[in-house]
């Protein structure tokens, strides 16, 4: 998809995709034939540049076609460069500007509570993303309003656009920071599917307060030359690199 588009964000897609697959596979309640079902669970992909991960799963779930996927970033495609609720069935948020997703998810969760609905809201953010001040505004507000059924996943892949997070602006002990904001936190290996599954179940069971899963992940997971490599944050593989990636991921 990214190779066909000649642009995109492979690194942060591969760090997130195990968790997204687990959510769609076993947790989220949705109706592919009725994408706007009011009581569906919401998945807010705040790190919207990792759109290829989302589109891959939406294809697997039947929301979009393979042609849709392969038209990624092309004029008129339902697969916009960054995930966009206006363009793609099954997408609940228009991302692309970092730091906004948790606020949006908080709004969804507050609305669900006003409606006495048990629909869940899942928000995924990147670790570089939480350098945005708005994220912490939302974190403070979610605790203040004791919003349950708001589940945050931090994709702690340690790399952002320009370089490693620790070089650009280290975000430190994210779990401790969220805990100090009043959140219940679990730290996991974001590629260990047993841990991922347990964390999702735990988070879902905590319905009285907001919960966060800090998932320690590897940027570019599964492709040797992309792993932990800042240069594959936002770059498409060439023909040769694609062949290697497909071989290694198969």
């Amino acid at each position, binding site marked *: 998809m990214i190779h066909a588009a000649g642009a995109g964000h492979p690194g942060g897609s591969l760090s997130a995709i195990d968790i997204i697959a687990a959510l769609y596979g076993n947790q989220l309640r949705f109706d592919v034939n009725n994408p706007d079902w009011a009581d569906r669970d919401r998945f807010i992909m705040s790190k919207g540049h990792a759109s290829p991960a989302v589109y891959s799963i939406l294809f697997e779930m039947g929301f979009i076609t393979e042609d849709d996927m392969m038209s990624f970033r092309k004029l008129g495609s339902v697969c916009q460069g960054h995930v966009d609720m206006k363009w793609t069935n099954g997408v609940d948020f228009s991302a692309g500007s970092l730091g906004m997703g948790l606020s949006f998810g908080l709004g969804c969760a507050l*609305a669900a509570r006003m409606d006495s609905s048990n629909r869940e809201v899942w928000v995924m953010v990147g670790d570089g993303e939480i350098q945005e001040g708005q994220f912490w505004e939302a974190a403070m507000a979610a605790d*203040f309003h004791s919003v349950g059924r708001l589940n945050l996943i931090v994709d702690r892949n340690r790399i952002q656009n320009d370089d490693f997070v620790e070089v650009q602006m280290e975000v430190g002990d994210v779990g401790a920071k969220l805990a100090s904001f009043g959140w219940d936190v679990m730290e996991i290996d974001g590629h260990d599917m047993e841990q991922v599954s347990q964390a999702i179940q735990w988070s879902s069971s905590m319905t009285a307060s907001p919960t966060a899963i800090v998932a320690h992940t590897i940027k570019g997971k599964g492709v040797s030359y992309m792993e932990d490599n800042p240069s594959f944050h936002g770059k498409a593989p060439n023909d040769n690199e694609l062949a290697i990636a497909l071989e290694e991921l198969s």
Partner: protein
Amino acid sequence: MSAPSTGGASRDGYGSALLRLADDPRVVVLEADLGKSTKSCLFREANPERTVSLGIAEQNMILVGAGMASSGKIPFASTFAIFTERGFEQVRNGVARPGLVVHLCGSHGGIHTGTDGSSAQSIEDLALYRTIPGMTVIHPCDDLSSEELTIQLLDHGRPSYTRTARNKTPRMYDEESCKKLRIGKGSILRKGSDVAIIACGVMVSEAIRAAEELSKNGVEATVVDMHTIKPLDTELIDELVQECKGIVTAEDHSVIGGLGSAVSEHVSYRGGVPIRMVGVSDRFGESGEPGELMNLMGITYGDIVDSCESLLS
């Protein structure tokens, strides 16, 4: 029209409207620690379960509104006009781009806000929100029109920004006449064939006063309350271009990007009559009483009179 009576400020009308809208269970109110000032506090007192305090955190408030709108609510979020601007990109990317219907209200707009000084005097908000595709921009002139236009937002179906003013201004409408107002349709308050004065907000009463002064010298002015800056009532402007020798715009806002710009853009496309803009020139305000500041900035009825006369001479 009869001499105007003094009502409340346009922010009072916003608060009254929220109270009336409370019958609709979809309506929710979001606050950022200025509910007493924007008058959303009236809704809070009656409906605390549908009022959400987000603290002094405007960016979060705007996206919480977007999330609620995506979940079937109709959020009305308010703070000072100037502080909505802190969340401009949130409005652009988080609200308007996906077409989520959040109604944002910025109170205390313009230099009319007064003694708080330039940090509180938003003179660019109308320009900012006017640039966002699909966004409705409203600036009522008194409490009754503010109440009526806010009520109409319930079924508007598009995101909006409404600027209200801190201070009382003379009423331009009564309980009956305000019901004839429609979002997107300018309201003709006075008819005259020499010049058309198109005003918004606190400048509407100044425009009426200017028209009365002009009339003493034999110049008859049409006065329009252009309470909706976007979508602009271009049909009405086209009629004014046909009927009058020129147009003077009046706003408590920068002359860059606001009502005057909107009118000029349209008239320049279609060709027509000369235009003069009364507004804040490219500068910041300062502390002072509203009347003193209007004098300082050159946005009084006298400035409107001068602009009309220079245009006709």
